[in-house]
Protein backbone atom coordinates (compact mmCIF):
# COMPACT_ATOMS: atom_id res chain seq x y z
CA UNK A 1 0.00 0.00 0.00
CA UNK A 2 1.43 3.33 -0.99
CA UNK A 3 0.60 6.30 1.15
CA UNK A 4 0.54 9.86 -0.08
CA UNK A 5 0.66 12.55 2.56
CA UNK A 6 1.69 15.29 0.12
CA UNK A 7 -1.51 17.22 0.76
CA UNK A 8 -0.72 17.65 4.45
CA UNK A 9 0.72 20.96 5.51
CA UNK A 10 0.07 23.49 8.29
CA UNK A 11 -2.53 25.26 6.21
CA UNK A 12 -4.31 21.95 5.65
CA UNK A 13 -4.42 21.26 9.36
CA UNK A 14 -5.67 24.76 10.10
CA UNK A 15 -8.40 24.66 7.49
CA UNK A 16 -9.63 21.12 8.03
CA UNK A 17 -8.76 19.96 11.52
CA UNK A 18 -8.54 22.89 13.91
CA UNK A 19 -12.17 23.97 13.79
CA UNK A 20 -13.41 20.42 14.34
CA UNK A 21 -10.95 19.81 17.15
CA UNK A 22 -12.15 22.91 18.92
CA UNK A 23 -15.79 21.93 18.54
CA UNK A 24 -15.14 18.38 19.79
CA UNK A 25 -13.32 19.67 22.83
CA UNK A 26 -15.98 22.26 23.56
CA UNK A 27 -18.78 19.74 23.13
CA UNK A 28 -16.97 17.27 25.38
CA UNK A 29 -16.46 19.91 28.04
CA UNK A 30 -20.01 21.20 27.99
CA UNK A 31 -21.60 17.75 27.87
CA UNK A 32 -19.33 16.41 30.62
CA UNK A 33 -20.06 19.27 32.99
CA UNK A 34 -23.74 19.46 32.14
CA UNK A 35 -24.08 15.69 32.13
CA UNK A 36 -22.41 15.35 35.52
CA UNK A 37 -24.64 18.04 36.99
CA UNK A 38 -27.81 16.49 35.62
CA UNK A 39 -26.49 12.99 36.30
CA UNK A 40 -25.98 13.88 39.96
CA UNK A 41 -29.60 14.94 40.22
CA UNK A 42 -30.74 11.72 38.53
CA UNK A 43 -28.54 9.62 40.80
CA UNK A 44 -29.90 11.34 43.89
CA UNK A 45 -33.42 10.81 42.61
CA UNK A 46 -32.76 7.11 42.12
CA UNK A 47 -31.32 6.80 45.60
CA UNK A 48 -33.99 8.91 47.27
CA UNK A 49 -36.05 5.89 48.24
CA UNK A 50 -39.16 7.66 46.97
CA UNK A 51 -40.82 5.87 44.10
CA UNK A 52 -42.18 9.01 42.49
CA UNK A 53 -38.64 10.35 42.17
CA UNK A 54 -36.78 7.10 41.59
CA UNK A 55 -38.99 5.60 38.90
CA UNK A 56 -38.92 8.46 36.39
CA UNK A 57 -35.17 8.72 36.85
CA UNK A 58 -34.74 4.98 36.32
CA UNK A 59 -36.93 5.02 33.25
CA UNK A 60 -35.01 7.93 31.80
CA UNK A 61 -31.65 6.28 32.40
CA UNK A 62 -32.72 2.96 30.92
CA UNK A 63 -34.27 4.59 27.88
CA UNK A 64 -31.17 6.63 27.12
CA UNK A 65 -28.92 3.65 27.61
CA UNK A 66 -30.93 1.52 25.20
CA UNK A 67 -31.00 3.89 22.24
CA UNK A 68 -27.95 4.57 20.07
CA UNK A 69 -26.66 8.08 20.63
CA UNK A 70 -26.68 8.84 16.94
CA UNK A 71 -30.43 8.22 16.86
CA UNK A 72 -30.98 10.49 19.84
CA UNK A 73 -28.97 13.21 18.14
CA UNK A 74 -30.89 12.83 14.94
CA UNK A 75 -34.32 12.74 16.52
CA UNK A 76 -33.69 15.67 18.75
CA UNK A 77 -32.45 17.75 15.87
CA UNK A 78 -35.16 16.77 13.44
CA UNK A 79 -38.11 17.04 15.76
CA UNK A 80 -37.37 20.52 17.02
CA UNK A 81 -38.16 23.10 14.36
CA UNK A 82 -35.66 25.76 13.59
CA UNK A 83 -38.24 28.32 14.58
CA UNK A 84 -37.83 27.33 18.22
CA UNK A 85 -34.11 28.03 18.17
CA UNK A 86 -34.86 31.36 16.58
CA UNK A 87 -37.48 32.23 19.17
CA UNK A 88 -35.31 31.23 22.09
CA UNK A 89 -31.89 32.37 20.96
CA UNK A 90 -32.59 34.68 18.07
CA UNK A 91 -30.69 34.59 14.81
CA UNK A 92 -27.62 33.21 16.54
CA UNK A 93 -29.66 30.27 17.77
CA UNK A 94 -31.06 29.59 14.33
CA UNK A 95 -27.63 29.82 12.77
CA UNK A 96 -26.09 27.42 15.27
CA UNK A 97 -29.02 25.06 15.56
CA UNK A 98 -26.96 21.88 14.98
CA UNK A 99 -24.33 22.90 17.49
CA UNK A 100 -26.84 24.00 20.11
CA UNK A 101 -28.81 20.86 19.51
CA UNK A 102 -25.64 18.79 19.92
CA UNK A 103 -24.82 20.47 23.22
CA UNK A 104 -28.28 19.77 24.56
CA UNK A 105 -28.53 16.21 23.26
CA UNK A 106 -25.10 15.17 24.46
CA UNK A 107 -25.76 16.64 27.88
CA UNK A 108 -29.08 14.83 28.19
CA UNK A 109 -27.65 11.57 26.89
CA UNK A 110 -24.44 11.55 28.90
CA UNK A 111 -26.40 12.45 32.03
CA UNK A 112 -27.82 8.93 31.95
CA UNK A 113 -24.33 7.42 31.98
CA UNK A 114 -22.93 9.82 34.54
CA UNK A 115 -25.98 9.14 36.72
CA UNK A 116 -25.10 5.46 36.85
CA UNK A 117 -21.48 6.21 37.69
CA UNK A 118 -22.43 8.64 40.42
CA UNK A 119 -24.99 6.29 41.84
CA UNK A 120 -22.25 3.72 42.26
CA UNK A 121 -20.01 6.44 43.69
CA UNK A 122 -22.55 7.51 46.27
CA UNK A 123 -23.14 3.91 47.22
CA UNK A 124 -19.41 3.43 47.67
CA UNK A 125 -19.50 5.93 50.52
CA UNK A 126 -20.44 4.05 53.70
CA UNK A 127 -24.00 4.81 54.78
CA UNK A 128 -22.64 5.73 58.19
CA UNK A 129 -20.94 8.77 56.66
CA UNK A 130 -24.33 10.15 55.83
CA UNK A 131 -25.53 9.34 59.32
CA UNK A 132 -22.48 11.09 60.76
CA UNK A 133 -23.46 14.18 58.80
CA UNK A 134 -27.02 14.07 60.09
CA UNK A 135 -25.82 13.37 63.62
CA UNK A 136 -23.89 16.63 63.51
CA UNK A 137 -27.11 18.43 62.69
CA UNK A 138 -26.50 18.86 58.97
CA UNK A 139 -29.44 18.89 56.59
CA UNK A 140 -29.83 16.49 53.65
CA UNK A 141 -28.41 19.09 51.29
CA UNK A 142 -25.43 19.84 53.51
CA UNK A 143 -24.72 16.17 54.12
CA UNK A 144 -24.82 15.39 50.42
CA UNK A 145 -22.97 18.47 49.28
CA UNK A 146 -20.28 18.59 51.94
CA UNK A 147 -19.79 14.97 52.93
CA UNK A 148 -21.11 12.36 50.52
CA UNK A 149 -20.72 13.86 47.04
CA UNK A 150 -17.14 15.10 47.49
CA UNK A 151 -16.16 11.55 48.39
CA UNK A 152 -18.29 10.00 45.67
CA UNK A 153 -16.67 12.22 43.03
CA UNK A 154 -13.18 11.38 44.15
CA UNK A 155 -13.89 7.68 44.33
CA UNK A 156 -15.36 7.75 40.84
CA UNK A 157 -12.93 10.15 39.23
CA UNK A 158 -11.26 7.53 37.04
CA UNK A 159 -14.59 6.19 35.80
CA UNK A 160 -15.95 9.69 35.20
CA UNK A 161 -12.94 10.50 33.08
CA UNK A 162 -13.02 7.23 31.21
CA UNK A 163 -16.61 8.06 30.32
CA UNK A 164 -15.44 11.51 29.24
CA UNK A 165 -12.96 9.89 26.87
CA UNK A 166 -15.81 7.83 25.44
CA UNK A 167 -17.78 11.03 25.13
CA UNK A 168 -14.93 12.74 23.30
CA UNK A 169 -14.85 9.91 20.78
CA UNK A 170 -18.62 9.97 20.48
CA UNK A 171 -18.64 13.61 19.46
CA UNK A 172 -17.94 12.28 15.97
CA UNK A 173 -21.58 11.21 15.81
CA UNK A 174 -22.64 14.81 15.19
CA UNK A 175 -22.01 13.98 11.54
CA UNK A 176 -25.66 12.95 11.57
CA UNK A 177 -26.80 16.55 11.90
CA UNK A 178 -24.10 18.21 9.90
CA UNK A 179 -22.08 19.71 12.74
CA UNK A 180 -18.35 19.67 12.21
CA UNK A 181 -16.21 17.75 14.67
CA UNK A 182 -12.66 16.47 14.73
CA UNK A 183 -13.29 13.22 12.88
CA UNK A 184 -15.48 14.97 10.34
CA UNK A 185 -12.54 17.19 9.50
CA UNK A 186 -10.38 14.22 8.60
CA UNK A 187 -13.17 12.34 6.86
CA UNK A 188 -14.23 15.21 4.76
CA UNK A 189 -10.66 16.01 3.81
CA UNK A 190 -10.22 12.33 2.98
CA UNK A 191 -13.15 12.51 0.60
CA UNK A 192 -12.35 15.74 -1.10
CA UNK A 193 -8.68 14.91 -1.56
CA UNK A 194 -9.57 11.26 -2.19
CA UNK A 195 -7.00 10.14 0.38
CA UNK A 196 -9.20 8.37 2.97
CA UNK A 197 -6.55 5.93 4.20
CA UNK A 198 -4.11 8.71 4.92
CA UNK A 199 -6.65 10.87 6.72
CA UNK A 200 -7.97 7.96 8.80
CA UNK A 201 -4.44 7.07 9.86
CA UNK A 202 -3.89 10.67 10.90
CA UNK A 203 -7.20 10.65 12.78
CA UNK A 204 -6.25 7.44 14.58
CA UNK A 205 -2.94 8.96 15.59
CA UNK A 206 -4.37 12.25 16.78
CA UNK A 207 -7.22 10.61 18.70
CA UNK A 208 -4.82 8.23 20.32
CA UNK A 209 -2.48 11.00 21.40
CA UNK A 210 -5.32 13.13 22.76
CA UNK A 211 -7.18 10.38 24.57
CA UNK A 212 -4.06 8.75 25.90
CA UNK A 213 -2.72 12.04 27.26
CA UNK A 214 -6.10 12.61 28.83
CA UNK A 215 -5.97 9.27 30.59
CA UNK A 216 -2.41 9.95 31.75
CA UNK A 217 -3.55 13.33 33.05
CA UNK A 218 -6.36 11.56 34.86
CA UNK A 219 -3.94 9.30 36.63
CA UNK A 220 -1.87 12.27 37.73
CA UNK A 221 -4.91 14.17 38.88
CA UNK A 222 -6.24 11.15 40.68
CA UNK A 223 -3.07 10.79 42.69
CA UNK A 224 -3.43 14.42 43.71
CA UNK A 225 -7.04 14.45 44.79
CA UNK A 226 -7.26 10.88 46.06
CA UNK A 227 -8.50 10.61 49.60
CA UNK A 228 -5.79 9.54 51.98
CA UNK A 229 -6.89 6.28 53.53
Amino acid at each position, binding site marked *: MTLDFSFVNPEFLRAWVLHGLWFSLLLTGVAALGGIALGTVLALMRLSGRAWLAQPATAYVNLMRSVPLVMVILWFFLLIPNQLYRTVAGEWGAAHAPEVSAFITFTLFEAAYFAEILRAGIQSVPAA*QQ*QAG*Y*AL*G*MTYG*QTMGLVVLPQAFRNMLPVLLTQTIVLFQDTSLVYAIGAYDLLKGFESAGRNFNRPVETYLMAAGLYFVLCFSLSLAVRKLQARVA*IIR
Partner: protein
Amino acid sequence: MIEIQNVSKWYGSFQVLADCTTTVKKGEVVVVCGPSGSGKSTLIKTVNALEPIQQGDIRIDGQSLTAPGVNLPRLRSRVGMVFQHFELFPHLDVMQNLTLAQMKVLGRGPDEARQRGLSMLDRVGLSVHKDKFPGQLSGGQQQRVAIARALCMDPIVMLFDEPTSALDPEMVGEVLDVMVQLAQEGMTMMCVTHEMGFAKKVSHRVLFMDGGRIVEDCTQDAFFGDPAARSARARDFLSKILDH
Protein backbone atom coordinates in the same frame (compact mmCIF):
# COMPACT_ATOMS: atom_id res chain seq x y z
CA MET B 1 -32.84 14.18 79.57
CA ILE B 2 -33.63 11.22 77.26
CA GLU B 3 -37.04 9.59 77.58
CA ILE B 4 -37.69 6.51 75.49
CA GLN B 5 -41.33 5.47 75.74
CA ASN B 6 -42.70 2.22 74.33
CA VAL B 7 -40.64 2.44 71.20
CA SER B 8 -41.15 -0.21 68.52
CA LYS B 9 -39.59 -0.42 65.11
CA TRP B 10 -39.85 -2.79 62.18
CA TYR B 11 -37.82 -3.44 59.08
CA GLY B 12 -40.56 -4.69 56.82
CA SER B 13 -42.12 -7.45 58.85
CA PHE B 14 -39.04 -7.95 61.04
CA GLN B 15 -39.31 -6.30 64.44
CA VAL B 16 -35.97 -4.80 65.55
CA LEU B 17 -37.22 -2.92 68.58
CA ALA B 18 -40.08 -4.16 70.74
CA ASP B 19 -41.70 -1.82 73.20
CA CYS B 20 -38.52 -0.32 74.60
CA THR B 21 -38.87 2.07 77.49
CA THR B 22 -36.18 3.73 79.56
CA THR B 23 -35.01 7.11 80.78
CA VAL B 24 -31.55 8.63 81.00
CA LYS B 25 -31.29 11.45 83.51
CA LYS B 26 -28.99 14.43 83.29
CA GLY B 27 -25.44 13.47 84.19
CA GLU B 28 -26.21 9.77 84.08
CA VAL B 29 -23.99 7.27 82.23
CA VAL B 30 -25.91 4.32 80.83
CA VAL B 31 -24.23 1.33 79.20
CA VAL B 32 -26.17 -0.77 76.67
CA CYS B 33 -25.02 -4.30 75.98
CA GLY B 34 -26.37 -7.47 74.48
CA PRO B 35 -25.71 -10.01 71.76
CA SER B 36 -25.13 -9.07 68.16
CA GLY B 37 -28.29 -8.20 66.32
CA SER B 38 -30.22 -7.52 69.49
CA GLY B 39 -31.01 -3.96 68.39
CA LYS B 40 -28.50 -1.92 70.41
CA SER B 41 -27.30 0.19 67.49
CA THR B 42 -30.83 0.64 66.28
CA LEU B 43 -32.00 1.82 69.67
CA ILE B 44 -29.23 4.34 70.02
CA LYS B 45 -29.80 5.64 66.50
CA THR B 46 -33.46 6.23 67.15
CA VAL B 47 -32.44 8.61 69.95
CA ASN B 48 -31.32 11.20 67.45
CA ALA B 49 -33.80 10.13 64.83
CA LEU B 50 -31.24 8.60 62.49
CA GLU B 51 -33.66 5.69 62.39
CA PRO B 52 -37.37 6.50 62.29
CA ILE B 53 -39.64 4.65 64.71
CA GLN B 54 -43.09 3.34 64.02
CA GLN B 55 -44.50 3.36 67.52
CA GLY B 56 -43.83 5.13 70.80
CA ASP B 57 -42.14 8.41 71.49
CA ILE B 58 -38.67 9.72 72.27
CA ARG B 59 -38.00 13.03 74.02
CA ILE B 60 -34.71 14.84 74.33
CA ASP B 61 -34.71 17.53 76.98
CA GLY B 62 -38.51 17.47 76.88
CA GLN B 63 -38.69 17.89 73.08
CA SER B 64 -40.40 15.04 71.25
CA LEU B 65 -38.61 13.76 68.15
CA THR B 66 -41.83 12.66 66.55
CA ALA B 67 -43.74 15.91 66.98
CA PRO B 68 -44.78 17.33 63.63
CA GLY B 69 -42.57 20.14 62.37
CA VAL B 70 -39.73 19.42 64.79
CA ASN B 71 -36.41 20.84 63.61
CA LEU B 72 -34.42 17.63 63.47
CA PRO B 73 -31.05 19.09 62.40
CA ARG B 74 -31.21 21.57 65.32
CA LEU B 75 -32.07 18.79 67.74
CA ARG B 76 -29.42 16.43 66.42
CA SER B 77 -26.75 19.08 66.75
CA ARG B 78 -27.36 19.00 70.50
CA VAL B 79 -26.88 15.24 70.64
CA GLY B 80 -23.30 14.15 70.05
CA MET B 81 -22.77 10.79 68.42
CA VAL B 82 -19.69 8.58 68.07
CA PHE B 83 -19.70 5.63 65.69
CA GLN B 84 -17.99 2.26 65.66
CA HIS B 85 -15.97 3.11 62.58
CA PHE B 86 -15.29 6.73 63.59
CA GLU B 87 -16.86 8.13 60.41
CA LEU B 88 -14.54 11.06 60.19
CA PHE B 89 -14.87 12.71 56.80
CA PRO B 90 -11.87 11.29 54.96
CA HIS B 91 -11.62 14.10 52.44
CA LEU B 92 -11.28 16.79 55.11
CA ASP B 93 -8.37 17.31 57.44
CA VAL B 94 -8.80 17.08 61.19
CA MET B 95 -9.47 20.78 61.68
CA GLN B 96 -12.01 20.85 58.85
CA ASN B 97 -13.72 17.82 60.36
CA LEU B 98 -14.05 19.73 63.60
CA THR B 99 -15.22 23.04 62.17
CA LEU B 100 -17.51 22.01 59.30
CA ALA B 101 -20.69 21.43 61.29
CA GLN B 102 -19.97 24.27 63.69
CA MET B 103 -19.98 26.70 60.79
CA LYS B 104 -22.75 25.15 58.70
CA VAL B 105 -25.12 24.15 61.50
CA LEU B 106 -24.40 26.46 64.39
CA GLY B 107 -23.43 29.35 62.14
CA ARG B 108 -20.20 30.03 63.97
CA GLY B 109 -17.53 32.10 62.24
CA PRO B 110 -14.33 30.37 61.08
CA ASP B 111 -12.25 31.80 63.91
CA GLU B 112 -14.63 30.85 66.64
CA ALA B 113 -15.09 27.37 65.17
CA ARG B 114 -11.36 26.93 64.88
CA GLN B 115 -10.77 27.99 68.44
CA ARG B 116 -13.43 25.66 69.78
CA GLY B 117 -12.02 22.87 67.60
CA LEU B 118 -8.53 23.41 68.90
CA SER B 119 -9.58 23.35 72.51
CA MET B 120 -11.52 20.11 72.04
CA LEU B 121 -8.62 18.59 70.15
CA ASP B 122 -6.39 19.57 73.02
CA ARG B 123 -8.75 17.87 75.39
CA VAL B 124 -8.35 14.53 73.57
CA GLY B 125 -4.61 15.15 73.37
CA LEU B 126 -4.25 15.51 69.62
CA SER B 127 -3.52 19.19 68.95
CA VAL B 128 -0.35 18.37 67.06
CA HIS B 129 -2.31 16.38 64.48
CA LYS B 130 -4.72 19.16 63.52
CA ASP B 131 -3.54 19.38 59.91
CA LYS B 132 -3.47 15.68 59.17
CA PHE B 133 -6.08 13.74 57.27
CA PRO B 134 -8.01 10.97 59.02
CA GLY B 135 -6.26 8.35 56.91
CA GLN B 136 -2.96 9.45 58.39
CA LEU B 137 -4.03 8.73 61.97
CA SER B 138 -4.24 5.45 63.86
CA GLY B 139 -7.66 4.08 64.72
CA GLY B 140 -7.43 5.23 68.32
CA GLN B 141 -6.50 8.73 67.25
CA GLN B 142 -9.33 8.84 64.73
CA GLN B 143 -11.85 7.85 67.35
CA ARG B 144 -10.58 10.54 69.71
CA VAL B 145 -10.94 13.11 66.92
CA ALA B 146 -14.48 11.84 66.36
CA ILE B 147 -15.24 12.43 70.04
CA ALA B 148 -13.75 15.91 69.81
CA ARG B 149 -15.86 16.60 66.74
CA ALA B 150 -19.03 15.72 68.62
CA LEU B 151 -17.97 17.80 71.63
CA CYS B 152 -17.43 20.87 69.44
CA MET B 153 -21.18 21.11 69.00
CA ASP B 154 -21.67 21.57 72.78
CA PRO B 155 -23.93 18.55 73.07
CA ILE B 156 -26.15 18.07 76.09
CA VAL B 157 -25.85 14.32 75.72
CA MET B 158 -23.39 11.95 74.01
CA LEU B 159 -24.24 8.67 72.30
CA PHE B 160 -21.56 6.03 71.66
CA ASP B 161 -22.07 2.98 69.44
CA GLU B 162 -19.32 0.45 70.18
CA PRO B 163 -16.64 3.15 70.05
CA THR B 164 -13.77 0.74 70.71
CA SER B 165 -14.77 -2.43 68.91
CA ALA B 166 -13.02 -1.54 65.64
CA LEU B 167 -9.77 -0.68 67.39
CA ASP B 168 -6.53 -2.58 67.81
CA PRO B 169 -6.42 -3.84 71.39
CA GLU B 170 -3.62 -1.51 72.37
CA MET B 171 -5.63 1.52 71.28
CA VAL B 172 -8.77 0.71 73.17
CA GLY B 173 -7.32 2.21 76.33
CA GLU B 174 -6.69 5.68 74.96
CA VAL B 175 -10.29 6.03 73.78
CA LEU B 176 -11.77 4.67 77.00
CA ASP B 177 -9.64 7.12 78.95
CA VAL B 178 -11.27 10.02 77.13
CA MET B 179 -14.71 8.56 77.75
CA VAL B 180 -14.03 8.01 81.43
CA GLN B 181 -12.93 11.60 81.77
CA LEU B 182 -16.09 12.82 80.05
CA ALA B 183 -18.23 10.72 82.34
CA GLN B 184 -16.45 12.01 85.39
CA GLU B 185 -17.06 15.59 84.27
CA GLY B 186 -20.76 14.90 84.40
CA MET B 187 -21.65 14.44 80.70
CA THR B 188 -24.89 12.56 80.11
CA MET B 189 -23.91 9.48 78.13
CA MET B 190 -25.51 6.46 76.53
CA CYS B 191 -22.89 3.91 75.42
CA VAL B 192 -23.26 0.68 73.50
CA THR B 193 -20.13 -1.23 74.48
CA HIS B 194 -18.82 -4.59 75.52
CA GLU B 195 -16.03 -3.10 77.59
CA MET B 196 -17.22 -4.32 80.93
CA GLY B 197 -14.26 -2.72 82.68
CA PHE B 198 -15.50 0.65 81.52
CA ALA B 199 -19.06 -0.21 82.53
CA LYS B 200 -17.98 -1.16 86.00
CA LYS B 201 -15.82 1.92 86.37
CA VAL B 202 -18.16 4.75 85.36
CA SER B 203 -21.66 3.63 84.45
CA HIS B 204 -24.64 4.28 86.65
CA ARG B 205 -26.97 1.93 84.89
CA VAL B 206 -26.74 -1.02 82.50
CA LEU B 207 -29.35 -1.99 79.89
CA PHE B 208 -29.19 -5.50 78.51
CA MET B 209 -30.96 -6.07 75.21
CA ASP B 210 -31.97 -9.25 73.45
CA GLY B 211 -34.18 -9.74 70.42
CA GLY B 212 -35.13 -6.06 70.27
CA ARG B 213 -36.27 -5.91 73.90
CA ILE B 214 -34.69 -4.27 76.90
CA VAL B 215 -34.40 -7.37 79.01
CA GLU B 216 -32.53 -5.86 81.95
CA ASP B 217 -32.47 -2.26 83.12
CA CYS B 218 -30.75 -1.94 86.45
CA THR B 219 -27.98 -0.16 88.34
CA GLN B 220 -24.51 -1.41 87.63
CA ASP B 221 -24.20 -2.68 91.17
CA ALA B 222 -27.18 -4.89 90.65
CA PHE B 223 -26.00 -5.96 87.19
CA PHE B 224 -22.50 -7.00 88.10
CA GLY B 225 -22.95 -7.61 91.79
CA ASP B 226 -25.96 -9.88 91.76
CA PRO B 227 -25.76 -12.23 88.79
CA ALA B 228 -28.20 -14.63 90.34
CA ALA B 229 -30.98 -12.06 90.04
CA ARG B 230 -30.32 -11.63 86.29
CA SER B 231 -32.12 -13.40 83.47
CA ALA B 232 -30.58 -16.57 82.08
CA ARG B 233 -29.84 -14.87 78.76
CA ALA B 234 -27.93 -12.03 80.40
CA ARG B 235 -25.95 -14.44 82.58
CA ASP B 236 -25.03 -16.53 79.56
CA PHE B 237 -23.96 -13.43 77.63
CA LEU B 238 -21.89 -12.10 80.50
CA SER B 239 -20.13 -15.41 80.94
CA LYS B 240 -19.24 -15.45 77.23
CA ILE B 241 -17.71 -12.03 77.09
CA LEU B 242 -16.00 -12.09 80.45
CA ASP B 243 -14.62 -15.59 80.23
CA HIS B 244 -11.79 -16.16 77.78
